[in-house]
């Protein structure tokens, strides 16, 4: 069966520090991968999605970036964190074929101080 992993689970970083969050999927090949952010107030905001290795689409201009170095690995990065980057970051995947359901990882809680 398919499994999605995210790490770290929680992270506290100072303003201006770099960031690297990792997401990996097991048990499937060529998935579509997504990064979402959930700030206080509950809504989920799509940040990036990828339909293949090296293919990244950005939905929101910001100081974050994403990369997909391998088929089942998706990385969210920042060179310098802002206070407004605090939130709950969720990685998700779909099968990449016909319209399909999205499955979410456990998330990373990021606090920028």
């Amino acid at each position: 069966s398919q499994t999605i992993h995210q790490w770290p689970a929680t992270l506290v970083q100072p303003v201006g520090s770099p960031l690297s969050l990792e997401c990996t999927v097991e048990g499937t090949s060529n998935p579509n991968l997504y990064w979402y952010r959930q700030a206080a107030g509950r809504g989920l905001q799509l940040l990036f999605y990828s339909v293949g290795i090296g293919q990244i689409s950005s939905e929101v201009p910001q100081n974050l970036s994403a990369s997909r170095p391998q088929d089942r690995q998706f990385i969210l990065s920042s060179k310098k964190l802002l206070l407004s980057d605090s939130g709950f970051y969720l990685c998700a995947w779909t099968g990449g074929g016909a319209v399909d359901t999205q499955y979410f990882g456990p998330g990373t809680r990021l606090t920028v101080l």
Partner: protein
Amino acid sequence: GIQVEQSPPDLILQEGANSTLRCNFSDSVNNLQWFHQNPWGQLINLFYIPSGTKQNGRLSATTVATERYSLLYISSSQTTDSGVYFCAVEQGYSGAGSYQLTFGKGTKLSVIP
């Protein structure tokens, strides 16, 4: 872009009670999903239901695509049903099979014993 509105924003139920959650969307969709986010942040897909009716145990969902709304029914609620329920839609075909979902702000459900 498409607007997704969920109601009510908050709901408190006595254990054993039934409830109906509503999701309105502003344009035609080809993908609608309901998710449950538990108190620890994990998002679980409940239904993929762009139209019609589905049932899974105590939960059922109905989407009337022509009238642009979907309903999630919870019967005989349990404390484990607590959390936030999200409706998410995809408007039309986003291209390249990317399946970009737009989320509503959710309904926070609290089931008390």
